[in-house]
């Protein structure tokens, strides 16, 4: 609840800072993602993020295989909906979102709130854990696939 209130407060602040979001902006109408999550992230720790990834993301995701969700290696910096051979929701495919650390933070905060029509509902509530897992994904992005 406190996080939600803080998110809302920050979201309102952003709205005030940038004017009415979306009005007369360059954002095409069909891009249904919403800028309402915290923008200030704590520094992430990739080593801690490895455990967060296995425990919280590992039910559906792997770095190098499409499972219930798409493979994640290289996701940081990738355009949403473009992992090879994965069948995405139309909403995510046309979202226009680039997976910057900030956008990943927003996604993990509330995916269906960030991209309307997204299928993923999983939320990682803790900001530090989000930062850690994003740091892990960024660190793994440059490594070769694990073929064990």
């Amino acid at each position: 609840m406190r996080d939600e209130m803080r998110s809302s407060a920050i979201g309102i602040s952003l709205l005030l800072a940038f004017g009415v979001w979306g009005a007369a902006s360059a954002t095409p109408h069909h891009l249904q993602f919403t800028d309402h999550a915290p923008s200030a992230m704590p520094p992430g720790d990739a080593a801690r993020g490895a455990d967060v990834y296995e425990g919280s993301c590992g039910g559906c995701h792997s770095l190098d295989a499409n499972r219930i969700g798409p493979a994640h290696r290289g996701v940081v910096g990738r355009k949403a909906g473009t992992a090879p051979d994965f069948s995405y929701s139309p909403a995510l495919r046309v979202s226009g979102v680039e997976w910057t650390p900030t956008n990943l933070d927003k996604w993990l905060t509330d995916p269906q709130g960030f991209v309307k029509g997204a299928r993923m509902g999983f939320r990682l509530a803790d900001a530090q854990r989000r930062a850690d897992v994003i740091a892990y994904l960024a660190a793994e992005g440059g490594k070769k696939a694990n073929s064990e």
Partner: protein
Amino acid sequence: MNGETIATRRSALRLGGVGLLSAGAVAVLGGCHTAMAAPQKTMAAGQSVNSGDVDILNVALGLEHEAIEAYQIGAESGLLQKPVLDVAVLFQGHHKGHRDALMSTIKMLGGVAVMPKMRDDYVKALNVAAIKSQMDILKLAQKLERGAANAYIGVIPSFKDTALAQVSARLAADETMHWTALTQALGEALPTGALTFGA
């Protein structure tokens, strides 16, 4: 639940027509399958089943399909010995129960349930080639069950229907039970701290 998911879709979702209220869905997930045949309540015209909830249930169903296949691969590997094999089959049965309940609920809500992938897809995705022992199978199962428990907890705040959120908690409890048994079978210590799951 983690995952932009799977192939099939919500294109067939009935939005805005006559749908079933969550009481029926929860009855199915609670094991009362007669609720499917005789739903107790219907939505008034103009109300809609939340498509986001159906999407989340379908992601969960994909996870259950994978779990069932993982235990099947383990059972057929010849690496599991009694009584571990019996426990694996028991847990697979739980996942089949989850699958059946989720499929019924998705259909009841007007959605289209995702189907399992091909065996080869699971073999590749789960890196089955690396499994050489009973311990390897237990470690894989432990990892999947931990992820599943956290996935079910992590989707709770996203459900628009709070009854489905409660069901998600029940599913998480089953997965946590599996994780605990597997952790003890592996001879690993249980967490010393509280609130291990769902952080």
